[in-house]
């Protein structure tokens, strides 16, 4: 037995019914009675606790990792709805999954990461393939979390870290992470994948720079105070229409992001690393990673065509890497800003189908719309916004 997987989903509005239906379907498709490990993504219209309870009961209390999202992705279908749940089950005697979680991201993301590292002990695994992390999308400090999780390893890039941040329905009010029987916030759950398998991973964003290059002239951690020696908010407002200026920032920030010039090792990836600005106050805007004064960047906007072509290209690259093999499981972490806010539903479904056909029609595929994405670029574990992270396990 290598790796057996199955994916099931439900859009039933009853959380218990939805959880049970999705888990049952996943196990039926896998042809197993009890999985070794379970991934769960669900949207925030559900009461999370009864949903998780139903999945746990149905899957026989198998270890579980997951988080909330704005929508779910399965084979041939995207459901950006408040009521959608996808369950992926795995069973293998060659590939092994274990998980750990901790809370306290907003207080000390490094310490939180260390707790996870102590529990997960991935530094001791010679056959570690990757870490799949799901973290709170509202309180994330990626760099600090990464440092904590990797504090026992040779470097923060010792093991590839994939995943993304939990999201809600653009309300930025609460996101949820799941670990086994626990639903929690302001934390992260990390899953260690090890054993005899291969993992292929790629990422793409779909943003294009607009205007002139800018320079961060004053910043504190992830807080940008000044750009080109002017108040950061004044500079940003120049990129906005009158409606966008008057609108709610949580809606406006979808249209605008920062494109930091990518380092040399990322030249195969793109020219820019995208950072969106989830929050702003009276004096600054905030980004999900730390940013140093002197950092050069462009303001960017998402580009419909670039997203489409980028997705397709990434799928083809994965397919090439697989060399004709059918992946056992495909994980798609997609930015919330690349869904229905930019694509009409039919187009979005078609885009997904094209991508899935390019990789493999037979692969079990599941995914989630997030506020942020994790994926290594050029061997460096990186945080992304407005991006697609595609991972194949074969």
């Amino acid at each position, binding site marked *: 037995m290598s790796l057996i997987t199955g994916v099931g989903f439900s859009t039933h509005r009853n959380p218990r019914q939805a959880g049970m239906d999705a888990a049952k379907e996943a196990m039926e498709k896998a042809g197993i009675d009890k999985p070794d490990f379970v991934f769960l993504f669900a949207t925030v219209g559900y009461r999370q606790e009864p949903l998780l309870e139903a999945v746990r009961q149905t899957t026989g209390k198998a270890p579980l990792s997951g988080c909330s999202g704005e929508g779910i992705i399965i084979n041939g279908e995207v459901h950006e709805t408040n009521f959608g749940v996808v369950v992926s089950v795995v069973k293998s005697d060659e590939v092994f999954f274990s998980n750990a979680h901790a809370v306290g991201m907003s207080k000390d993301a490094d310490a939180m990461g260390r707790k996870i590292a102590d529990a997960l002990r991935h530094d001791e695994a010679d056959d570690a393939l990757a870490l799949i992390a799901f973290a709170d999308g509202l309180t994330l400090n990626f760099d600090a979390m990464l440092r904590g999780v990797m504090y026992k390893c040779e470097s923060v890039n010792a093991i590839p870290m994939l995943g993304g941040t939990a999201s809600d*329905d653009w309300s930025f009010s609460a996101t949820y992470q799941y670990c086994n029987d626990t639903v929690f916030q302001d934390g992260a759950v990390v899953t260690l994948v090890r054993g005899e398998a291969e993992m292929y991973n790629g990422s793409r964003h779909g943003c294009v720079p607009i205007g002139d290059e800018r320079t961060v002239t004053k910043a504190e951690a992830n807080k940008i105070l000044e750009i080109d020696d002017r108040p950061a908010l004044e500079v940003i407002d120049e990129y906005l229409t009158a409606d966008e200026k008057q609108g709610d920032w949580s809606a406006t920030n979808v249209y605008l992001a920062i494109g930091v010039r990518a380092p040399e090792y990322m030249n195969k990836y793109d020219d820019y690393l995208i950072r969106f600005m989830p929050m702003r106050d009276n004096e600054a805007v905030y980004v999900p990673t730390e940013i140093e004064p002197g950092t050069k960047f462009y303001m960017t906007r998402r580009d419909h065509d670039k997203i489409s072509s980028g997705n397709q290209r990434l799928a083809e690259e994965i397919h090439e890497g697989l060399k004709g093999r059918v992946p056992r499981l495909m994980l798609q972490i997609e930015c919330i800003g690349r869904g229905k806010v930019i694509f009409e539903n039919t187009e979005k479904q078609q885009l997904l189908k094209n991508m899935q056909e390019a990789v493999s029609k037979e692969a079990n595929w599941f995914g989630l719309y997030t506020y942020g994405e994790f994926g290594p670029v050029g061997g460096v574990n990186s945080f992304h916004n407005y991006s697609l992270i595609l991972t194949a396990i074969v």
Partner: protein
Amino acid sequence: MEKFTLKTNVLEEGKKAPDKDADSLRNENQNLRNQVRLLMAAESKLYTLQEHLNQQQQIYAKLAELGRKLNTLLNVDEICKILVNFVVYELNFERCVVLLESKRPGEAGKLRVNSCEGYYDDAEMDAVMNAEFQVESPVLAELGDEGTHLCVKEDHSCDKCAIIREVFFLDEFFLFPLTRKEEGISGCILVGNSKRQARYQTRVDSGDDTLVPLTSLVRQASITLANVNSYNALEDERARLDIMVAERTQELSRALDSANEAVRLKGEFLAKMSHELRTPLNSIVNVPAALAADYREVDVYVCSGCSAEFQSDTDESETPCPECGEKLERQMMTICEGDPAEHLSFLNLVKQQGTHLLSLVEDVLNFSKMESGKITLNYEAVGLYHLLGEVEQTMRLSIRDSARCIRYFRPEHDVELVVDETKLKQVLINLINNAVKFTRHGGEIDVHATLSGGIDPHVRFQVRDDGIGIPYNQQEIIFESFRQVDGSSTRVHGGTGLGLSIARQLVDLHGGQISVQSELGKGSRFIFDIPLHPAQRFPSKAPLPPKPEDLKDELAEIDCPVKGSGTVVVVDNDSSLLAVARKILQREGYTVICVQDPTEAVAVVHREQPKILILDVQMPGMDGFAVYEEFRKSKALREMVVLFSTGDESEKEKVLSLGEVWLGKPWNTGIMTAEALERYCEDRRFRI
């Protein structure tokens, strides 16, 4: 840079254009941008409206489908479950609760939760399912009419709403009444959201998009539930009638079984009675025939001169008397060739069988009277000792030859009872006779009478024997009519099977109870209680009971019969009865004049002025009372004792009211003794 936005392009292109043209182009460009923006906004709005319309259309289609489905249902629970599911999973509210009038006893006017949806926490679910509301509660009081509702938004605050928020975990809600025609509120539907989940649900507001489907749903629910209630009420009524029919059928079936059993028992009874009556009749009919065979008629020649008698088989009528030579006269004479002792034995047998036949007939007649409710008690004051003495005397004569020992146990003090003496004696004699019947020769029978005080004072009579006993499962049925422990045609013990039934009915008429304790092979104990009248609760001042030695004296008197004297006139249209009367009374020492014609009887009585007149009541032409009227005021006849002879017990009272003696038919030979008759005469003289 792979691509630039239009805005950026325009700005860059603008830098290259002449100022005037640039302004013009900028303005034009701005206009175009504005138009594009308007077009896009309009298209977006149209798209949104179209989506919204599609959603509404879907909802109304589902509502129509729901209506059709509800119309096919008859189960209230199922209907409520469908309603809450529709609200939560089709109309997209977070929670829905249906409350209906409680059917529990003593909960009129109370609403209880029938069904709810959207509660996924067990504690919340339990709390909601146990919630209740009074129809008269303030929040429901406002919702009297169909079509009204309460809309409470998240920011609304009032005391009436607070309780619903608290009990049903809702921060915003609609409250719709469920109504029945002319019956007011029969329930309500709560629809709403919690604060935590409200943003993902259909919000509570008064917009048509929200209210119209909900109102339509509630109206449909009201109609459906009212219809189902009516249907269920009809069904309940039908079920009740079915049960009644079934019960009545069962009752009729039982009655039929009972009637069949009664018919069977009566058939059995008739068969038994046929046998029981024919058996003594066999002796009564055949013994005289057998005895008659011992009698022969012979010719006797009597001398007309010396009266000498000569028996001869040849004709001697021409032969002179050998004694005196006178002529002999031929006469017929009956001679008995049998053994006189054997004849006496046969005559006793006839008497015995006649007495037995009489008791059978009396049983049947008594039972018949009881069945028709014609029997009444003639209450009179009677001493307990006296009663027992009467019974004892009767039984002594009855069991003279039976070789059973009967012992009587009296209470320490006598007490006066107000009872029908005859009937009570009948009960006791019946029980004692039964005991005699079912006790072996030499067996013992005890008759106890004890007084019991307390709040329900009574005399308890017990008749105990050491006979064959009664099986446990038969102990109840022996008091039923026509029942005997052994009802078979091969039974050993005879009788009508009515004796105990009669006894029970007579005891019942006295306000008492009869029961039996018995063990097979060891004997039986029949017990009956006769209530004491309040005035009888204390021992009477009656004379002390006769002592055994006194009884011996009485017996001695019985053994030395009194001889009668004087004339007795017997009036009856039955010549055979007159013959018997003559025989009995002559034996007792009386001169007997028998009269068949009642009109002649009046003259005879006036002429003979007899000591005793025995007068049949029912006679052709003139009844006994009419005859009696002819001389009742005659001073010359005031010492005459009149015995009215009748088989009709109902005339007893009338007879006694005349101050005369009632003589039941057939006659009790105990009464037709000189001793008894002379007592009546003494009593008459004493009264005068």
